């Protein structure tokens, strides 16, 4: 029948005569969420929770072990009318309750079914462990008695008084921290944090803090549970291997029974609440001890510092993040009044796909209201993206530390998150009865989506770009050095355009030279006069004098030239660039000192350093005369186009400019052992680019020795090919496959 909720069910006869009732030990809590009343039913062993709507609760409430299911159903129909559960819904409800061991029935127990369910659950758990090795849980201890005993002592923490005190504590800590702000981050150097001496302390601190965190949850659950008479049982504390780092966890799910969402949220937040308090205490201790006091003081200081960071930062990063399924998630789901936010978000997403893309008419929407729809979808999408992102980060991190392990996890994660869901999806697509009518459409939609992805990633070429750092250098340039010692009298300001051999860049004088010139001139005159006189008298003497004069003449010319050279002129037309020239006037400058550069600014070249992965691709894929884009490093708003004019045929290790080295702020790692020369660690390929035109709006000029980022546009190729190449390169680089160079870690 084409009715959404058919009243009758063909298997009704199997339950109609039963007289079941809820087990005595079952606990029920009433909650109001999003304007609807729900009843949360907890099974006696505390592992599972079921929620019943008002109608379901009405039905279950009437099951007293004396009435038959059929009678109760008839009663419900009388009382609730259309809202009464249908036979199918009753069967499902009873089945679920029974599977959760919540139902006592007048029947002999179905032992086989019991074992079957148990086997199934164990299998599911084991599979859960295997597929989730990164987040495995190992239960250790039942803290219920402990909590019972101490909740009177610890419970006040979660009262209003406790909250006020907590705020005060945080305020005090904040006050101290503000005072020592600078030190705070100076000490945060990972070098000191991860100091081997500190490592043990760090770990001890972490375990302590996390244990307190979990006890915080436990006590809160207990406190509010006793307050609301729901018991607040907490039966498991254990260890979770969070990416192999064992951290404690606690099962405080009895908080589900709490009536107020705020109380539930507080139970969820209790861990962070405690941790922040610990962080505050640690901050105060840290601020009050100093690094230089006794050795004990040092240890306490360091420990306090570490605790402050672990308790403060990790709390906010990990636990507070609602996108991971830790405290933040539960708080969010409590506050939104949407339990099972993550699962229901996924289900809602599936519903949307099934209903609107696959056209499954009987698909039931998960969300009950517009706002719930919004939240579910938002959460499903963001947490999905975040989960993928975080797992890639974790995988990358693990793989970086342990290659083999990383590879194994990558495979496990891939299987768990990709292969199995894909397999399930295919199975669903091919065999699900709900697709009976729309299988064609569903398959088509899937195929189209896949095709779009495959074509998009694998076939449609997208721009393929690579960036490299380069340095601007003029093609024609002349470095000017002081030709002779002298006092600088006047300088031409840097930046002035000069013509070749025209005008003076630097005017200097050397009194010694002037004096010497005068002396030489005088001696020459004397010698000349004596020569003239000697010519008249004695030939032989004249000849000696003649030599003398010639020698003096030569000396004079030399000195004069030297003096003249103190008027430094540019050898070529271009711009006079001497950043320090302003401090020269009046100074005594020795010969050979560097004065500045005259460079032909109309003719600049950018020397780009491309690494091994990019360099060899430039020639074949961009080629000579290829157009590139450039931006000034640090000023991305200034852009030029450029043309490749030269591509080095072979690799080199010397850099065109020291400015490109990492030590100078560039991006090329250099060999620090070589004192005299700037040599790159890996061979570089130099590509020379001639700037053609500025492409940015604002007028811009390129200056020599400026660092620029050059973007090469390779021929477009599919995204998949690009990603694949990048992944291979990254793996090669990461795992040093076939490379003996050890990258120095700073």
């Amino acid at each position: 029948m084409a009715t959404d909720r058919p009243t009758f069910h063909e298997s009704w006869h199997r339950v109609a005569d039963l007289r079941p009732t809820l087990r005595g030990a079952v606990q029920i809590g009433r909650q109001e969420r999003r304007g609807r009343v729900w009843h949360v039913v907890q099974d006696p062993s505390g592992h599972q929770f079921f929620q019943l709507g008002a109608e379901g609760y009405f039905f279950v409430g009437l099951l007293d072990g004396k009435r038959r299911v059929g009678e109760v159903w008839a009663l419900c129909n009388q009382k609730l009318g259309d809202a009464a559960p249908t036979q199918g819904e009753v069967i499902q409800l009873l089945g679920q309750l029974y599977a959760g061991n919540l139902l006592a029935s007048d029947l002999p127990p179905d032992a086989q079914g019991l074992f079957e369910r148990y086997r199934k659950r164990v299998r599911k758990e084991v599979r859960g462990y295997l597929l989730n090795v990164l987040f495995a849980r190992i239960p250790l201890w039942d803290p219920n008695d402990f909590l019972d005993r101490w909740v009177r002592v610890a419970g006040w923490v979660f009262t209003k008084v406790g909250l006020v005190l907590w705020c005060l504590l945080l305020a005090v800590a904040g006050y101290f921290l503000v005072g020592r702000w600078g030190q705070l981050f100076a000490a945060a150097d990972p070098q000191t944090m991860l100091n081997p001496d500190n490592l043990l302390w760090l770990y001890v601190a972490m375990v302590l803090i996390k244990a307190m965190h979990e006890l915080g949850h436990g006590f809160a659950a207990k406190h509010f549970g006793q307050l609301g008479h729901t018991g607040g049982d907490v039966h498991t504390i254990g260890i979770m291997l969070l990416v192999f780092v064992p951290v404690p966890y606690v099962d405080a799910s009895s908080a589900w029974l709490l009536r107020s969402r705020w109380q539930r949220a507080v139970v969820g937040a209790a861990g962070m609440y405690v941790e922040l308090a610990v962080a505050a205490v640690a901050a105060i201790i840290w601020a009050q001890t100093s690094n230089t006091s006794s050795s004990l003081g040092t240890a306490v200081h360091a420990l306090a510092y570490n605790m402050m960071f672990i308790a403060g930062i990790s709390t906010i990063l990990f636990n507070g993040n609602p996108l991971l399924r830790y405290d933040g998630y539960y708080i969010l789901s409590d506050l939104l009044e949407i339990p099972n936010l993550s699962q229901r978000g996924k289900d809602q997403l599936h519903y949307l796909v099934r209903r609107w893309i696959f056209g499954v008419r009987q698909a039931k929407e998960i969300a009950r209201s517009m706002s719930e729809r919004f939240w579910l979808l938002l959460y499903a999408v963001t947490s999905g993206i975040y989960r993928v992102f975080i797992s890639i980060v974790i995988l990358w991190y693990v793989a970086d530390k342990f290659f083999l392990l990383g590879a194994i996890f990558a495979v496990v994660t891939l299987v768990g998150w990709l292969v199995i869901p894909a397999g399930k999806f295919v199975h669903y697509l091919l065999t699900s009865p709900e697709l009976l009518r729309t299988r064609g459409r569903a398959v088509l939609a899937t195929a189209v989506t896949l095709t779009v992805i495959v074509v998009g990633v694998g076939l449609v070429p997208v721009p393929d770009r690579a960036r490299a750092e380069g340095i601007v250098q003029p093609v024609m340039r002349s470095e000017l050095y002081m030709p002779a010692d002298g006092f600088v009298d006047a300088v031409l300001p840097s930046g002035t355009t000069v013509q070749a051999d025209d005008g003076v860049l630097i005017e200097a004088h050397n009194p010694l030279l002037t004096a010497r010139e005068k002396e030489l001139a005088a001696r020459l005159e004397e010698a000349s006069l004596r020569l003239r006189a000697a010519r008249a008298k004695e030939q032989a003497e004249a000849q000696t004098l003649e030599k003398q004069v010639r020698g003096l003449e030569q000396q004079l010319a030399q000195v004069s030239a030297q003096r003249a050279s103190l008027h430094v002129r540019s050898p070529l037309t271009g711009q006079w660039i001497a950043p320090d020239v302003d401090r020269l006037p009046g100074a005594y400058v020795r010969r050979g000192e560097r004065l500045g550069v005259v460079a032909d600014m109309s003719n600049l070249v950018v020397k780009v350093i491309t690494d091994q992965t990019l360099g060899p691709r430039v020639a074949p894929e961009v080629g000579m005369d290829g157009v590139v884009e450039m931006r000034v490093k640090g000023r991305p708003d200034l852009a030029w186009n450029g043309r490749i004019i030269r591509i080095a045929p072979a690799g080199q290790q010397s850099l065109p400019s020291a400015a490109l080295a990492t030590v100078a702020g560039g991006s090329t790692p250099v060999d620090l052992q070589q004192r005299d020369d700037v040599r790159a660690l890996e061979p570089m390929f130099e590509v020379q680019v001639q700037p053609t035109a500025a492409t940015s709006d604002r007028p811009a000029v390129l200056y020599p020795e400026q660092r620029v980022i050059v973007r090469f546009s390779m021929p477009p190729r599919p995204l998949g090919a690009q990603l694949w190449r990048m992944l291979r390169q990254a793996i090669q680089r990461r795992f040093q496959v076939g490379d003996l160079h050890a990258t120095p870690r700073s």
Partner: protein
Amino acid sequence: MAIELIHPGNFDQPRSDVLTTQAIARVTPAVSIAHLGAMWRHLGDASGKAAADRKLPKGLDAAWDAGLGAVYAFMPRTRRYLHRAQRIVAISDTLQTVSDARLRQELVELRVAFRLNRQRSSDVDRAMALVRETAQRQLGQRPYPVQVAAALALYDGCLIEMATGEGKTLTATLPAVLAGWRGRGCHVITVNDYLAARDAQNMGPLYRFCNVSVAAIQADMPPVQRRQAYRADITYCTNKEVTADHLRDRLILGRQRGLVAALSAQLAGGDPRVESLVMRGLERAIIDEADSILIDEAVTPLIISGEAPNAELVEAYQQAATLAGDFEAARHYTVNHKYREVRLTNAGRGHLRQRGAAMGGVWAGARRAEELVTQAITARELFLPGKQYVVREGKVVIVDEFTGRLMPDRTWRDGLHQAVEARELLDVTPMKDTLARISFQRFFRSYRTLCGMTGTGREATMELWRVYHLPVAVMPTHRPCIRRHLGTRVFADAASRWGAIVQDVRQMHQHGRPVLIGTRSVAASERLSELLGHEGMPHQVLNAVRHEEEANIIAQAGQRGTITVATNMAGRGTDIRLGRGVAELGGLHVIAAEPNESHRIDRQLFGRAARQGDPGSAILYMSLDDEILRRYAPPLASAALLPRHGAAGGELHRPLLRRIIRWAQARAGRMARGQRAAVLRNDDWLEEFLGFAGAEE
């Protein structure tokens, strides 16, 4: 109590037929030890290994099972069986001179080996040879080598495909005797009571000679006789009866099921319930027409129901029928012919709310009211007299859509039957309460060993493996088949098709050849009958209601000049032997008036002609407005067919059409298969969920 059979329909829209029987009196005669022993075994099975096996595998297990099936089910085995059959025939030929007494003694000796389950392969061969010889002496029929090979395959638990008329009844006796010797019972499942009684009767001498007792279950048997019949070594029965008996036993046992519960009850001082059981376990079944039982009717659940008089509800159906008169198609509801369902539109719902508010009672609530009205509209729109049902003697009689058979004592479930009754302005029978329910599919999966015979089975190889773990063995015919297949004739509309058929019949009739025309529905058979009557051609009409009479008629259908119009399944299990001189005229001419949803059924019909090396011919007629095309042909193909040749009434010659029919049949088959799988899965799911309510079977 009553037995209810739910007819295979759409998964979402199950219709049911109810078969009423008298209430069972509690019977307490002494029960033999042997009977009890078998029963204990049976109870043990029900809770042990068999129950786990009965669930369909899932996930990778399912893939493995399918892979195994692909290898095992398709393994060529026919030739092996034929070789072995040759050896057996050779042994059997040496027995021709042996005296009856000697033969009997050897049979007794072998029987001991089989009873102790210590038979070797050579014993099986020897036993088959002995039975073959016995058959010759007692029945005057000597199984052909092909039949012996088929018997071997059956004994091994295969489903054999044998052409119609090759002697399936005789074939079944060989493995039945061997299974009977085992002493744990062997059910030979036939399609109707008449065949069960007839076969048990006809084959009786053979069985008795072989020292096995035989009995047949009839619908009107009281429980005491039933129990005696089941105590026989071999029991002939219909699938319906055996399933119903199983269910009734289940009801007697109540929720105290399984060996442990029954044993403890027995220890606590003899449980009268155990002693009033009728059956003694499901050991082996040999199913005749296995494809129809295991596939076509597989998801038909059989229901035992009790009366639950509810005058208010009866009135509600009548009101609903009246109310439905107000509803207009398209405005208030939409009809989906493909999936056979009716949906109210929002306007329809509003209309209903308005009307219902005034009426009060059941009508006050929206959900029930909607259900009732939707049902009433469904009854009006989708259930047509002559097609889905006929009215006979003031009662709605369901017509099996698949086979055209009338199902006189079934009703649809969930109030649909009542809705149809209300629509026909008949007395509305009160709805019944379900007491127990099982589908044939699930029931037959409970047998320890299952084997079957069919005329057409290879199309379903994969499904038979998946659901029943039955491999299919295709047996060759004893004599080469010389049936001429005259192909498919396609017409633009039904009228021209009927015209052509009548013409065809006349032509054949003039030559004196007997003609058998298979129709899909009772309405169609009646229409054709009318046309033939108009033309003054004498003919017989069968719609599979009175099996015995029809068996006689169909047995005569091979006589010179007879014309027989039958729904597909009419007179099944009975050979059409050619009359004198008919073979020279060309044998029986079979006309399929309309393609069926499954090519298998078409083949079954064609198989009626040219049996055992006789001449014969077969032809398929179809028109573009046939249901199979309307429901299953791809929309594009239908569009391509639209530009019909010339004016209406013409015959179309397009090779593409035949492809489309096959395509539509394949699609119909796929959908039906999907539905069956879904039902099975749904059953598994329910089993899991309803574990607390005790096992169903």
